[in-house]
């Protein structure tokens, strides 16, 4: 049950595929990759099976020491340490699941340089798994940076449109953010050193109750350092403009991974670093989080309303849904943060589904312009019904996975007591934050508007003559869409299955704030 093995498995897979001993046969590469991804997925399920939700703190801790019992980089106090808690393990399983799904979806979209592609996906998977399981601040940063490189290759080689521009933009933008994160990490570490004389990067030390507390200015500055990196990743308006380009120009399976998991890294980082390590700053800055969250929801929903490119519309809808995560996080109570984590999982599955549908349509029509598409439902009813389920889940329809998340997040923000201690603003702040949350709920109307408008334009109506040969879903695509819908419906009916895993962890986090 070694977490290091979980992170290393994809890298081993990548090496096996990329090595010269592996045949160039596309089918063999694909089948091996799918099998290996399935193996990683099943292995991660073992972790969930043996996970104990009520135990707080990190579980399955796994530290690798150099021969002779020394730490990895002893003079700096850096360990090669891994550990998961409730939130990370949910995101972990989401990652392995989505990688498996996107590999199955790669069959039609990827037509060249297969070896490089599959090995890059595995390196990406390893990096993301590393981010979610790292128990050491330096290791976290390391994996955070590593995931950029496979992303660059994946977007710029197999993408469409302005792929090189989008890939470079994505990397440089994320990188600029992470510089500030590095500064904050070092600041925290050295402050800890000055207070206790111990130089350590261990996350467990920083997230637990500390003997000292940060001076408020220092805490706020460190907060913004971390926030810069996670704001680019989440993404938070106005640092979001890499997302439409990267999502639109990436190939379908990569878009699914990008929207499904990479955005969650930002949310996860916010919880781990900003909420757990810097509680003083987050108590002061929580209103800002909610304001930014509401801006995310409304602003990007309005933009999605007037998009003509199908994939861009879904990209903006991704940003909009991540706004709900932000609103939940700003609430600083168990309901809000649980809603945020649940929304991360829900949105991962839903946006993977949405991008899959775009990919299915693009494969057959080679266009993403909504005015050009029309009446597809007539020839391809199965695709239409699957899309309908996923679109309805994205809307936040009850008994599908998005609803519980939205409700919890908004309820948390509404009933938050985090702003009642602000003597500076009197009663204005709590009231205005609640009014703002109400404005955020108004976003569900906009979401319904643009999603249903898109659905109507694309699927309903008479089929245009040029799409006479639009054939229905292949069994391949049916499997992918059906498995996603299955997850959506099962956890929609029974969200306790998911929340049971991370709610105790969240309760613990809230108690420590």
């Amino acid at each position, binding site marked *: 049950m070694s977490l290091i093995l979980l992170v290393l498995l994809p890298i081993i897979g990548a090496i096996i595929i990329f090595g010269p001993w592996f045949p160039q046969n596309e089918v063999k590469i694909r089948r091996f990759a799918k099998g290996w991804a399935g193996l990683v997925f099943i292995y991660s399920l073992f972790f969930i099976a043996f996970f104990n939700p009520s135990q707080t703190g990190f579980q399955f801790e796994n530290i690798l020491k150099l021969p002779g019992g020394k730490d990895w980089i002893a003079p700096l106090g850096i360990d090669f340490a891994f550990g998961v808690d409730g939130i990370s393990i949910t995101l972990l399983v989401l990652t392995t699941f989505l990688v498996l799904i996107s590999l199955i979806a790669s069959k039609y979209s990827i037509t060249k340089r297969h070896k490089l592609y599959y090995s890059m996906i595995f390196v990406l998977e390893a990096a993301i798994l590393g981010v979610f399981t790292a128990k050491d601040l330096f290791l976290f940063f390391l994996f955070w940076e590593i995931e950029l490189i496979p992303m660059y290759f994946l977007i710029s080689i197999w993408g469409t449109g302005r792929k090189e521009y989008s890939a470079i933009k994505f990397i440089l933008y994320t990188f600029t953010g992470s510089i500030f994160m590095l500064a904050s990490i070092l600041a925290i570490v050295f402050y800890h050193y000055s207070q206790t004389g111990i130089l350590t990067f261990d996350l467990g030390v920083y997230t637990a109750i500390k003997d000292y507390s940060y001076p408020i200015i220092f805490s706020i500055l460190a907060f913004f350092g971390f926030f810069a990196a996670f704001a680019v990743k989440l993404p938070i308006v106005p640092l979001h403009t890499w997302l439409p380009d990267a999502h639109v120009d990436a190939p379908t399976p990569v878009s699914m991974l990008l929207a499904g998991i990479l955005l969650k890294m930002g949310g996860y980082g916010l919880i781990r670093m900003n909420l757990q390590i810097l509680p003083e700053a987050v108590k002061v800055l929580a209103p800002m989080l909610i304001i930014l969250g509401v801006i995310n929801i409304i602003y990007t929903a309005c933009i999605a309303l007037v998009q003509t490119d199908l994939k861009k519309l879904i990209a903006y809808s991704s940003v909009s849904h991540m706004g709900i995560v932000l609103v939940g996080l700003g609430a600083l109570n168990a309901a809000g943060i649980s809603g945020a984590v649940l929304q991360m999982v829900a949105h991962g599955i839903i946006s993977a589904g949405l991008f899959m549908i775009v990919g299915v349509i693009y494969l057959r029509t080679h266009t993403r312009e909504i005015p050009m598409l029309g009446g597809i439902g007539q020839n391809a009813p199965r695709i239409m019904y699957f899309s309908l389920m996923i679109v309805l889940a994205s809307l936040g329809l009850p*008994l599908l996975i998005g609803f519980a998340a939205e409700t919890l997040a908004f309820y948390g923000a509404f009933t938050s007591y985090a702003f009642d201690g602000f003597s500076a603003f009197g009663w204005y702040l709590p009231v205005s934050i609640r009014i703002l949350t109400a404005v955020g709920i108004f976003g569900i*109307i906009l979401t319904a508007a643009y999603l249903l408008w898109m659905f109507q334009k694309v699927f309903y109506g008479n089929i245009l003559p040029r799409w006479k040969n639009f054939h229905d879903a292949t069994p391949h695509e049916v499997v992918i869409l059906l498995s996603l819908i299955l997850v959506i419906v099962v956890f929609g009916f029974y969200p306790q299955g998911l929340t049971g895993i991370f709610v105790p962890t969240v309760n613990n986090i809230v108690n420590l704030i």
Partner: protein
Amino acid sequence: MEFFVENAGLIALLPLWVFLIIIFGQNLFVYENKKFTLWLTISSTFIGLICSSFILAWTFDNTTPYVQNFNWLEAGNIKLSVGIIVDRLAAMMLMVVTSVSLLIQIYSHEYMNKDEGYHRFFAYLNLFNFSMLGLVLSSNLFQTYIFWELVGVSSYLLIGFWFKRPSAAAAATKAFIMNRIGDCGLLIGILMFLYFSIGWWASNSDIFLSFTAMPDAAKYVFDSTNPFLYTVIALLIFLGPVAKSAQFPLHTWLPDAMEGPTPISALIHAATMVAAGVYLIARVYPIFELSHDAMTVIAWTGAITALMAATIAITQQDIKKALAYSTCSQLGFMVMAMGAGAYTAGLFHLMTHAYFKAMLFLCSGAVIHGLNDQQDMKYMGGLRKHMPAVAYTYLIGCLAISGIFLSGFWSKEEIFTGLLEHNQIVLLVIAMAVAGMTAFYMFRTYFLTFEGEYRGHEHPHNASKTITLPLIILAIPSAIIGFALCGKFGLPSFDAFMRVTEETVSHNESLLIPAVSLIVSLLGVGLAMVLYVEKYRNMLKINLDNFIQKIKPVYDFSANLWYINKTYYKFIDYVVLPVSEFMSAFDKFIVDGIVNLAALWVHFCGWILRLFQTGNVQTYATILFGGLIFLTFVFTIYWLL
């Protein structure tokens, strides 16, 4: 009998399973047998009906509601449960929904027999059944919201059933989005209510927002907030029913919803789903009761809706649209009654309206079906000779809705009495006027469709047994259920049945109200006869077209639906979309522009630095020696000082 009550959830779950069976049956192992789908659906609804009747019988003896819950979502200080509540209100709604549903399903077999989407239709019908029955049985406000949205989705799917028609697709989207606006208000209202009462729920009740504890919770919230805020909460919660029950201003989706098949219009948009709004008002009545301003707004919203819809229905040419506006108007009646305080009167009218409106829609469906999908009344006429059963049942329905002796009369009388009791004289006058208009336009449709000479081109044929049988069965409650439950002459009283906790108020036994309403309705019928039956028209030498020309502005205002639809579209085209376009441009050029500006800045700095790289050795030498001399200078100065 307790068995049925304890397992009442089955009534709602059976349709869900049938839905899943049909969906999987069609997609995994495609079966062609329509009868199988039909019998599955009908049997599940029939079982529901039997169970509902047993439950109704149970509620005669037991006045305390039966509640059963289990945890659905738990995080932090919030605990949301799902469960069922069985009390008299739920039992009544169950009976109405299952009976109307059953008859419409029988009717749909014939109506949709030739349609290629037969199985899909029945699958959606089952989904709707599940949603509606779940809504009726919900034990707390949050669960009601869940099923509220589900009912909205079923409606969306069914309105857009013939999705190849662009108008149907647009109508479905419009319906869903307007309902979403209401849902948004409802959600905000629920959250606000929860926020103010969270302490109370945590200590007093295990189930948040449960209806049994609602009166006490409402009192607590009322005491702990200022009246304005409480009114805001109540009105936000009311926004949900405004959208769902097609009240002004969120009513424009209902006429467009007529794009769906007629059985759907009958089931959803006449009898059940639109009644869900009224049902919700009944359930959260304790919240509304405490705020006088909210009740006034509710009553006036209902009144305005009733008035507006009635005036529009007068000029409609499409029979389904006329019936849709009449539904809207009757819903306004119900909401007005509940807003004025006549809680049971509104519910009584809900029940009677469900039966006769469903029947009216089914009759119009028979007519449309018989005329090969012709809906315009200009091309109908004299169909009584061709479809006698349909004509006579339609007549019964018209009499019922106009309030002439059949069931509508009794329920309307209760509403009028209730309005009078609560001293709402202005509303009473409006209600009377609307009742008169109702009689007028309903009989207008009757005369245009069934009397006179046939003006169309088709060959009308009579409807088959499967279509006329439900009509005849529905005619029975339409005719007598009002009388049977009026509470007078020793008959059981609906009013007393519903008022479990309050003391029965003795009604004003005067004959003034019934007499006036009867006269007004008969006047309306008379006017319709005079204008639309050619015999009488020629007798009085009335030229209809001249008359319409004289009142053209008023006529247009009505025929164009008070221009509300156009206003909404203008709003979207001139406000919403330009704002979004602006934001999109802002995002693309300014926000992204700053990012590209950063890249441009780096580019620019590189360009400047490149100016120093001339490739000429001598330039480099110049710089080298220049720097050397400069340094020498500096050090000399330093050494000298």
